[in-house]
């Protein structure tokens, strides 16, 4: 299994409006024009409800804009079939969700193996790689544990290991260190940065932590569904 080259991602006039459960349409993103170059480390900050998670979902092809288009390497991806978008996610995107979203019926090792199973990585190789990743995130002794047997920080680390298992070119992380103490948070950030440095992966990281944001090369702040600031430099 080789790492997938990260794409250049562009958002052109992207808006996302939600209607379900609301009497009136609720805009989560408003006419966003933005792009990310391969290998960039971008931090996204902003108050709750400003559209950070929606932005990540659109970048990772979990969601589609109600207006505008998302392009990967210049090609619009919104018109691709659900199956094609799932394949792009599986091969090229790693998600670290704010609420971990581990599968409760799988062990830590099985959770990390899951994307590799779908990619038909041979059993021995995927088990070896999952064990390595769990060791890297400090969970060597927790491979057989189910999520309910893990602390919040441990679940977070399993989620990080799972996101890295398919060697993604694009890593999208929603508060990846929110549940970790400073030591573990630093270790996880170091792991993510190493992935980016080694393979040139793109890293988009939503955080409220100024220290974490400070390690990114590009800083975006959002407000009311729009990108308020977009600056480069540590």
């Amino acid at each position: 299994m080789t790492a997938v080259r990260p794409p250049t991602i562009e958002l052109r006039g992207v808006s996302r409006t939600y209607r379900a459960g609301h009497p009136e349409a609720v805009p989560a993103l408003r006419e966003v024009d933005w792009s990310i170059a391969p290998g960039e480390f971008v931090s996204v900050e902003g108050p709750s409800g400003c559209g950070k998670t929606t932005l990540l979902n659109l970048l990772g092809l979990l969601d589609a804009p109600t207006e505008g288009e998302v392009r990967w390497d210049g090609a619009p991806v919104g018109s691709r079939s659900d199956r094609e978008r799932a394949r792009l996610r599986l091969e090229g995107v790693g998600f670290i969700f704010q609420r971990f979203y581990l599968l409760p019926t799988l062990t830590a090792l099985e959770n990390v193996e899951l994307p590799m199973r779908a990619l038909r990585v041979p059993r021995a190789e995927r088990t070896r790689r999952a064990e390595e990743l769990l060791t890297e995130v400090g969970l060597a002794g927790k491979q057989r544990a189910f999520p309910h047997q893990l602390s919040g920080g441990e679940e977070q680390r399993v989620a990080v290991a799972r996101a890295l298992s398919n060697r993604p070119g694009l890593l999208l992380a929603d508060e990846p260190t929110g549940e970790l103490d400073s030591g573990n948070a630093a270790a996880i950030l170091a792991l993510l940065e190493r992935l980016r440095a080694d393979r040139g992966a793109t890293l988009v990281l939503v955080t409220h932590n100024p220290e974490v944001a400070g390690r990114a090369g590009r800083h975006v702040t959002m407000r009311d569904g729009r990108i308020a600031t977009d600056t480069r430099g540590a």
Partner: protein
Amino acid sequence: MMRFGFGASLRHLRIQQVLAIAAVGTAVALPVVLISVGGGVATHELNSLENAGYQLVVSASGEHGITDAHNLSRQILALDSVTAASPVLSVAIDSFLPGGGPSPVLAEGVIPDQFTPTLGPAESGLFPSPLPLGDPTDAVHFDNGTYAGAATNDVLVSSPLAQADGIATGSTLWLGPTTNRSQATAYNVTGTFGVPLSALGPTGAFAIVLPLSNLQVMAGLAAPSPSAPHDAADTIEVAVTGAAAADPTALARIRGEVQRLVPYYFVGSLDAEAEQLQSASGVLTGFYLALSSVALTIGLLFLALVLVRRVESDRRSIGIRRALGLPRRWIAREIVADGLALGLIGSVLGLAGGYVIVAVMAAWGTGGVQLAAQWAVFDPTTLAAIVVGVAFLSLVASGVATRAALRVDITEALR
């Protein structure tokens, strides 16, 4: 809960899954019991007909409806190719042991030398041959319808009755039409016979066989009377030569000749009875299958509901899988595997449950229920068809759940 495959998902059985398995199991057990017992009874009856030693039966409406049984039997016996014409009268009477009270028994009155040739291969070994009832033709006592001749007063006792009441060959048994012992007559026990439960019905285990004329007199069915038929019998069983029995045309001819002798009675052939029985059995099987289909449909609807309910409760897990990029076919495959596993586990338990129910009925049932259960036939083809049917319906149920799962919106599920 879905995992990689159904083997793993079974580790997380929940109450709905247990209930779904129970529903499918019940739905399978019902047809297993119905079809195995119903089919077994039909098969047994067909075998009885096919193994009988006679081919034609004269019968009349009402109890003991044939009159002039001795004379009619002689006339039928005189027909070409007829080898035996055996009138049979069945009456419930009472027996009295020395110093004992009345005990009901089923009495069969027969003409000894006509009765033996009408026994089929399965029954002939159960009776002594010739029947030791004194007068082989029953002509002496009958005496041309006067019943003035000397009665032999011989009786054969069934083995279960002889064993239960300690009746030995050579002993005396008092027999009477009512529980009043003063009306009873002393009979010589000249032998015993085995009674298969199927031969005389579940109550026939306590049975006796005696000359027809003796039973007619005892039951008040001998001499002409305004209130009862004379020289009465229930049926006349007619045996023909082997060649005639194997030739439908010859059998039809003989049947016609017998019918001309007794235009006011019904003359049936066992072949026709077998056909009717097969036809009735087919109708019953269809009814059982319809009933079973309803049960299976209800069971599988329950399974579909459980699977859909699980999809609802696993929306987040499904959303996570789809967010990670797992193909839709993975999710579909897991649901189908789970549905099939539940259906097949239910099937196996239903088959085992049905078998146990039939075994319990055979061991502890009463009367006809016990007898029917003992005749049950577990046809592997039918049982396999039930399992295949359940597997198919499980696939349909899984399809409904899969459709619901693939409609899960990822961002909604992860919210």
